[in-house]
């Protein structure tokens, strides 16, 4: 694998010399995300494999090109999992892409996000320097937390080589309940349930019914399901996997699909457009014909942010515009990691 690292470093050196940016590609399963960019492909899928997995240390170290499938299977053999439930868009989805996009699945509000479980990264910055930040241990405050900074940076700060992630035990038992409710009642119910000491692990309102998943100790899950007083839903695994992997029906729309992350207490005016709500009311998927500016305003007015998840116009800005102060810090940081702007430039924002 040292050879592969050398190849990547050569590619970066070449990109700097030729002023020809690189486009980092893993399994290419989430190529539809982010802004359209051009560049020479830097392939990561052949840099794969589990480097170290110690169930009793609660961590796994993997190469960026390792498929999520392989990681999930490896962990499951030891009764463990990636608790942030990353989307597995297709069989080629790699962990590098998961970390680079920072997208977490249905369990996120109850157990934390990708970055919460990133313990360390081994990466190459835009100068071709091989760097390691963080490590495999749970607590580490030596130096700035650059491994978490790289999570969700869409490859604009460095090429992630290896990642160490904290893993957690698989729940002993899971149960999903559902109930037909209006949107307002569903939102209220999600908030009400979040305040209870019950082992919630996912929540979703699909426009007709509210779905609640409970995970943990079997007795506790069963008692809790009685407390919440909803009917047991049988096709649960398929339902949550489809939601996690962006396969629910809303994702088939021909319109723009927006992803709005907002405070759980906000009430968004979704109009008559189809929407799907998860994360206890904190995540809206919106099938909308409204202009981008209107959606960005809707999100920011609620104290959140929007992202064009799947768009019809390739020129449209994807991510919530940043304030001037924030954008200037972003530019400075991009410059600190990738001064020649060769790593995925423009993938998030035009100027970084």
């Amino acid at each position, binding site marked *: 694998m040292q050879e592969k690292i050398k190849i990547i470093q050569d590619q970066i050196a070449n990109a700097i010399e030729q002023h020809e940016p690189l486009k980092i590609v893993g399994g290419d399963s989430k190529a539809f995300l982010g802004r359209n960019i051009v560049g020479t492909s830097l392939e990561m899928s052949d840099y794969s494999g589990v480097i170290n997995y*110690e*169930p*009793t*240390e*609660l961590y796994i170290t993997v190469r960026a090109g390792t498929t999520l499938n392989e990681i999930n299977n490896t962990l499951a053999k030891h009764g*463990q999992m990636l608790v942030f439930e990353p989307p597995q868009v297709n069989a080629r989805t790699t962990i590098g892409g998961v970390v680079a996009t*920072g997208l977490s699945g249905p369990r996120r*509000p109850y157990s934390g*996000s990708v970055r*919460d479980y990133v313990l360390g990264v081994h990466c190459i*910055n835009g100068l071709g*320097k*091989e*760097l*390691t*930040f963080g490590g495999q*241990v*749970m*607590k*580490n*405050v*030596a*130096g*700035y*937390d*650059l491994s*978490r*900074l790289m*999570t*969700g*940076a869409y490859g604009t700060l460095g090429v992630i080589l290896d990642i160490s992630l904290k893993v*957690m*035990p698989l729940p002993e038992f899971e149960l999903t309940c559902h109930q037909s409710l209006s949107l307002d009642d569903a939102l209220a119910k999600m*908030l009400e349930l979040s*305040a*209870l*000491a019950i082992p919630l692990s996912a929540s979703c309102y699909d426009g007709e019914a509210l779905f609640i998943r409970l995970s*943990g100790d079997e*007795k*506790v899950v069963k*008692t809790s399901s009685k407390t919440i007083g909803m009917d047991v839903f049988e096709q649960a695994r398929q339902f949550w996997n489809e939601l996690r992997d962006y396969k629910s029906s809303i994702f088939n729309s021909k319109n723009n699909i927006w992803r709005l*992350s907002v*405070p*759980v207490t906000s009430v968004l005016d979704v109009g008559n457009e189809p929407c799907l709500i998860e994360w206890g009311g*904190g*995540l809206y998927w919106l099938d909308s014909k409204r202009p981008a500016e209107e959606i960005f305003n809707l999100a920011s007015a609620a*104290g*959140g*942010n929007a*992202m064009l998840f799947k768009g019809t116009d390739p020129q449209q800005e994807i*991510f919530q515009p940043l*304030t001037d*102060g*924030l954008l200037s*810090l*972003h530019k*400075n*940081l991009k410059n*600190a*990691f990738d001064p020649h702007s060769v790593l995925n430039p423009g993938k998030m924002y035009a100027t970084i």
Partner: protein
Amino acid sequence: MDFSKLTEILPTGAVLLSEESRRVYECDALSAHRVMPGCVVLPDTVEQVQAILSYCHTNDIPVVARGAGTGLSGGAMPHAEGVLLSLAKFNKIIEVDPIQRTARVQPGVRNLAISDAVKSDGLYYAPDPSSQIACTIGGNVAENSGGVHCLKYGLTVHNIMQLKLVTIEGELITVGSHAFDSAGYDLLALLTGSEGMLAVIVEVTVKLVPKPPFSRVLLAAFDDVEKAGNAVAGVIAEGIIPAGLEMMDKAGVRAVEDFVHAGYPTDAEAILLCELDGSQGEVETGLNAVEQLLTRYGATEVRVARNDAESDLFWAGRKAAFPAAGRVAPDYYCMDGTIPRKHIAQVLSGINDLSKKYKLDVINVFHAGDGNLHPLILYDIAIPGELKRTEAFGSDILKLCIEMGGTITGEHGVGIEKISEMCIQFSDDELEQFHAVKAAFDKKGLLNPGKAVPTLNRCAEFGAMHVHAGKDKFPELERY
């Protein structure tokens, strides 16, 4: 340096220039290192903080931000030609939202005051550094503080949502949000644990969590340290994530037992404390499983607390480890390395070898669940050369932690204390990357200069926290 201009920006009494008034601020809890600050400012509005920073930026004046000054690594040690910016007056809880389960607080609010304020809503703020009655949330963010319960509930970085900060140019910026995700880079994570090097925090939004309905502690004794270390791994392998999992060696057990009489078995080579929380049924089932498992791993005795009072007693011993060390030796020096759990026995034996080599006793207490060690090296500063030997011993422990795949600091921060060891843990390229990140926020290098990241050409002088005659700067604070 002319600080008198600051009196024009700030109200009367908010600028301390006299020697007596500045003296109070000359060190944090790493009291071996003292520097008289050039001047001390005590603003009470965000606008004043902006004005101070903008003034310092224009006039190239170093700025060191300070919360309660309870830090153990010298992160708030002043700069002789600089401004010491105390955030003590920012002590208000601005807003509690029990439905959103967040609290928006000023940085000078004490950690425990947040939990106290939301108790009636059945909520609390999870990270619980041992100094929580005094340390402030702003300092917790700056150091990414942990605590006994972070194995299950995470560190500060996992428990905050939004920060308002002022840059060295005086600009007010919000990072993060009250939503689960935010746009752009994860600056919230970058700022957390950045030791006051990147910006000054003026507001924090913390997450609140529902108080678990039930919790209970179990105590297990082992006749062999290795068995205890393996038992820790065994608990985790079983799929159990305890709320807290602590370990103490024989020297520690004896020191605390003499002090607080917690009923610890003094003939044990090591003891484990394991706390579970959740619903009563869940906890009772879990404790049963842990008890059987620890017995299987060779525990000579397992005691489950029969009630809350007994749980508190079990904890009292662990929490008294630092003051107990202060009773058995004139001074002690606390280390903070973190290692993979599986190496606990090996590292302990390494520390014992070093103890013989340096002819200094050591008491070992661990946050075993997450591999965070707090070896307390016992020494006497009155004996010439002993502090130097202690520091060399401490440095060797940190090197051992790095060799074992760990880190030099799990929760106390680098500050000035571990700046030399940063040179061992990180390569020049990595340190250069840190400096580049620093420059992205603070090009002139005015915020907390000389801390956290060593310069390449020269690793700064190595210091130590030393406690004389059992009295540290905050003797009333628990340290564990």
